[in-house]
């Protein structure tokens, strides 16, 4: 058996929610770090200039990331990405503070990087209430409040959903938690740089961040950790004592500097990006709509600009994906290991297995163009009717 050649490089990238291209300005800075002899030191080697220069970059990046959240720099702990940040926040806070209560509230539509650590905590004796969102994907703050118990230690709710782009009302949940002294963790992997964030105003205690959804590099992230009053965490990775002992391991200067610049650019350009991307998304939605039998998954307004999750009726999911393979879009759970299962997020919104399987996530970003969108519309308008026409019950083509 010969395997078909990979689709041509003419494909169009519409998978910004899985990961973004690195902004050329960020890449340039990172290359400079990687190539500069002066910056080659270990940021912990502050006994010499090579280390101190590297450390200065790390600390300046800490300020850049903090700034986007309206936080103080010392609240930022570097990690390898939002998956690690979520694990550190949830496992760390729950284990350290277990004496305060062993109940946790979260939602069924969270990323696996929240759900899996919560499952581990369940095995360690915690109990978790998983809220079901409404059909639009919204978890209502009242639902959270109703789920709270006297022994509730922690609430974890994502800011923006990675599959649907739906935005949760984090501020209302934060206020409710703060009032009751309950810890509040937010997975902001998909929202940072796309939605304004003010950790103080939102009442957030712990927030997970990653660089590679905001035009920064993969493999670096951060955990925002409220410092006043101090919040105890049991570290996941120890030895060396970096990051105040909360996260040991040599700091990756180029990665951190890249994340810093990416967050600074998000602060200055994020709003303009969003406006432009919203217009492109609208164009895409109108264009796709012409094939009929499509439905938007997730709340139509309470959403970020760049994500369009569409259910196509009367087409089988895998064939839909394959027929559109010149479009780099996502089916099912994105940014996680590939799986044959239909998206549990869409299932939680009430879609059937088949509907979930026939849904595609188009996600756009800073470098998306009208040409990209028009190419995507063209593919959809060619392939979706073709597949539908092949199916039993379709009007027979003239033969």
């Amino acid at each position, binding site marked *: *058996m010969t395997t*078909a050649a990979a689709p041509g490089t003419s494909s169009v990238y519409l998978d910004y929610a899985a990961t973004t291209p690195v902004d050329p300005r960020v890449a340039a800075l990172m290359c400079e770090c990687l190539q500069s002899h002066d910056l080659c030191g270990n940021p912990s080697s502050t006994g010499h200039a090579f280390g101190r220069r590297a450390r200065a970059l790390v600390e300046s990046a800490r300020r850049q990331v903090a700034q986007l959240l309206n936080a103080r720099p010392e609240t930022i702990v570097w990690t390898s990405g939002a998956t690690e940040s979520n694990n550190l926040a949830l496992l760390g806070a729950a284990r350290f503070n277990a004496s305060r209560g062993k109940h946790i509230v979260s939602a069924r539509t969270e990323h696996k990087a929240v759900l899996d650590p919560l499952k581990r905590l369940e095995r360690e004796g915690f109990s978790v209430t998983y809220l079901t969102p409404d059909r639009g994907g919204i978890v209502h703050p009242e639902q959270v409040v109703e789920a709270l118990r006297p022994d509730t230690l922690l609430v974890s709710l994502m800011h923006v959903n990675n599959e649907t782009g739906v935005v949760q009302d984090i501020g209302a949940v934060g206020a409710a938690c703060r009032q009751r002294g309950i810890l509040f963790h937010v997975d902001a992997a998909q929202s940072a740089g796309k939605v304004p964030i003010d950790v103080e105003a939102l009442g957030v205690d712990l927030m997970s961040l990653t660089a590679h959804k905001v035009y920064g590099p993969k493999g670096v992230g951060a955990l925002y950790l409220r410092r006043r009053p101090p919040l105890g965490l049991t570290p996941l990775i120890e030895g060396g004592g970096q990051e105040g002992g909360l996260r040991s391991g040599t700091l990756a200067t180029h990665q951190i500097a890249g994340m810093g610049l990416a967050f600074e650019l998000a602060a200055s350009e994020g709003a303009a990006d969003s406006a432009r991307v919203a217009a492109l998304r609208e164009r895409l939605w109108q264009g796709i709509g012409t094939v009929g039998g499509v439905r938007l998954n997730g709340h139509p307004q309470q959403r970020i600009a760049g994500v369009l999750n569409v259910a196509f009726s009367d087409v089988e999911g895998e*064939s839909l994906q394959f027929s559109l393979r010149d479009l780099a879009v996502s089916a099912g759970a994105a940014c996680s290991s590939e799986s044959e299962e239909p998206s549990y997020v869409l299932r939680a919104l009430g879609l059937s297995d088949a509907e979930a399987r026939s849904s595609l996530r188009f996600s756009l970003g800073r470098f998306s163009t009208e040409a990209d969108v028009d190419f995507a519309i063209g593919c959809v308008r060619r392939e979706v009717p073709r597949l539908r026409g092949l199916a*039993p019950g379709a009007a027979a083509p003239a033969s």
Partner: protein
Amino acid sequence: MTAESALSVTSPDYSVLVVDHFHRPRNAGEFPPGPGIRRTQAGNRQAGAEVSLSVRIAGDTVAEVRFQAFGCPHFLAATSLATERLAGMPVEALGRWTAGELGRELGVPVEKRGRLLILEDAVRAAAQ
């Protein structure tokens, strides 16, 4: 966890033959009802694979087959390829037709071989 195999990439790979039939399905459609035309159906959309065949019989031979199908690329390609292979076959042979060889030829992955049974059902049903 000890999952040894989980490190391998499970991206669907489609053979050249699958891609060809997926993009240029042979004999799509159906014959208008009439003498010598047999229609069979198997599977259903909810389960992810459905096929209907329209078989034109001339004497005791399969003259031509058309199909309509809903399913994954392997299923569509297998159905399309089957329509080519069935033409010219004795009608009575349809009753013992198996999709195994087709599956191997197309490189249908093991976990999907089950779907070919739906196609088999539709083909065999055309024997009566």
